[in-house]
């Protein structure tokens, strides 16, 4: 004898309004929420700038990334060279811009690789269960036990330096995170009413997984991927800093540039400042965006 659920008595009234909600869709709904989230908006702006700069680097940059003697050695910032120049007289502004290209390219591909590998492991583990699950989860445990950067270092030591190796090394360190995340969502979804219902009407296991569970498990994956992009940018720079970055020394990779910049910490501290700043700003962007996405996509956080 409960009065507590007026909604139940009002079922008949509900549909129209509910329809309105649904028609706006999960994504546009999330997007509008995202736009109302001020930090996330800042993140979105950072990221848009970052991606824009990466894509438009050839247009914006006043000089080519390899072009030497565009100015003097280790010049301080000026109108001609917004971020100053390095030892070889290369325009640091242009190099930082092109650096965004490298970071974005390596970062995105690495995270996609991790997403695919981790997703596959997670889907198999969560979808099939049983011994497959146990084995795959132990594999992720092993990967998790090795500190990320050491794992990446080890992989590069094993495979030698190279762009592809770099991406792979970064990717592998994130595989367990995605695998666990997807597995977790799938396990939760497996118990959900609609999946059970779909199973009851005879949908195959694969169909259940692909049609019913994956789309619903996607949201946390996207949030996580955004957050991990921030980490990936930092990790790429870290490997570059350790001298394990792209094999071509001229590549304007931020970490590699920092190694050079570091030598002039006293003479030309602005180089460390600008290169480091670029890393920090893009990482902050992805972090803010990731947090914002989480807040706007996670229905539990709806207020």
């Amino acid at each position, binding site marked *: 004898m409960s009065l507590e659920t007026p909604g139940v008595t009002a079922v008949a009234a509900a549909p129209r309004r509910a329809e309105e909600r649904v028609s706006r869709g999960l994504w546009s709904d999330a997007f509008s929420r995202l736009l109302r989230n001020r930090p996330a908006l800042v993140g979105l702006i950072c990221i848009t700038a970052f991606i824009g700069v990466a894509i438009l680097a050839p247009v914006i940059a006043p000089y080519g990334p390899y072009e030497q003697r565009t100015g003097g050695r280790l010049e301080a910032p000026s109108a001609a060279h917004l971020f100053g120049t390095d030892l070889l007289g290369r325009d640091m502004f242009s190099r930082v811009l092109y650096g965004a290209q490298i970071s974005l390219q390596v970062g995105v591909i690495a995270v996609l690789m991790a997403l695919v590998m981790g997703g596959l492991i997670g889907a198999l583990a969560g979808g099939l269960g049983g011994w497959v699950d146990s084995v795959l989860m132990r594999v992720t445990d092993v990967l998790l036990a090795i*500190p990320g*950067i050491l794992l990446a270092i080890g992989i590069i030591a094993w495979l030698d330096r190279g762009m592809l190796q770099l991406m792979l090394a970064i990717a592998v360190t994130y595989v367990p995170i995605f695998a666990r995340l997807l597995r977790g969502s799938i396990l939760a979804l497996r118990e959900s009413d609609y999946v059970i219902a779909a199973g009851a009407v005879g949908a195959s296991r694969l169909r259940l997984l692909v049609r019913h569970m994956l789309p619903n498990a996607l949201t946390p994956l996207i949030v996580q991927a955004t957050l991990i992009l921030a980490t990936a940018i930092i990790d790429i720079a870290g490997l570059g*800093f350790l001298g394990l970055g792209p094999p071509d020394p001229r590549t304007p990779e931020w970490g590699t540039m920092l190694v050079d910049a*570091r030598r002039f910490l006293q003479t030309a501290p602005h180089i460390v400042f600008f290169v*480091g700043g670029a*890393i920090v700003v893009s*990482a902050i962007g992805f972090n803010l965006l990731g947090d914002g996405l989480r807040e706007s996509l996670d229905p539990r956080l709806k207020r």
Partner: protein
Amino acid sequence: MLKYIVRRLLATIPVLLGLSIVLFAFVHLLPGDPCTAILGQRQTPAACARLRENLGLNDPLYVQYLDYIGGLLRGDFGASVINSKPFFDEFSVRFPGTVELTVAALIFAVGVGIPLGRLAARHAQGWIDGLVTAISLFGISIPVFVLGLVLVLIFGVTLGWLPTQGRIEARAGFEPTTNFLLLDTALAGRWDLFVDVLRHLILPAIALGSIPLAIIARITRASVIEVSNEDYVRTARAKGLTERRVDDRHIMRNAWLPVTTVVGLQVGGLLGGAVLTETVFGWNGVGRWVVDAIGNRDLTIVQSTILVFALIFLIVNLIVDVGYAFLNPRIRYS
């Protein structure tokens, strides 16, 4: 409780096994001829034969693996390919440096991160909260090596307040015994050097601790806010307890639980970050050693370092989990 610990221990075994297989493959399944891959052109027939013998490369793979495991169980972690020194000879000299650094960073991260998180939670949505959120955002977004360089430039080179490299004033000529310099200087009664060691620790610990600090502050804030909204906190207030008592006894006792787990997980990140921090600060630890070893393609050193770091990570998290169980009566009494 005991059952829980045993179950937790048993669960570690397959991970250890997997780890050993991965690391075994790391050296024994190198692409190409192992002699060339490991020794490069230094290979003389004699050196190559020695290497093959040392690694047992002439045996079938499973025998090699069993030998490797057998060696590990006997405490034989292999020797440097470059100078034949047993792994632990040099590791034992370098490891204390890494331990001091990571522990200092962890203390910094926990010691500052938790109060910051509590502060933010208490003033949730206010400007203090915003500031803490900004700090932690910055903390997770700034790489250790960038922060390290900036700290060196400001507090070392420009202001001259703190040393920029190494673990102890070289001039002092202090002869360590255990290489845990804080311990050694204290045991020797050299409190001046003890302070000096602490001063050397400050900048690297801040650089290394910044990411965990940010993460810990975030999780503490979230956890405290979540617990603060729990009914039993309202109950505690309704009983007329002082705010302090509500905070310490009712909120923190519960908020600790997720925080401990996260702190445990930070150990992996700290050990990894130590590699970069030690490079920036010329810190004589395992991290810098392993970077050098990779430069030298001294794969057994890399292999065993990864193994030891992974073991530490597993052990720390085992301890944390047991501690968690101990803190949490729902697990303790089930």
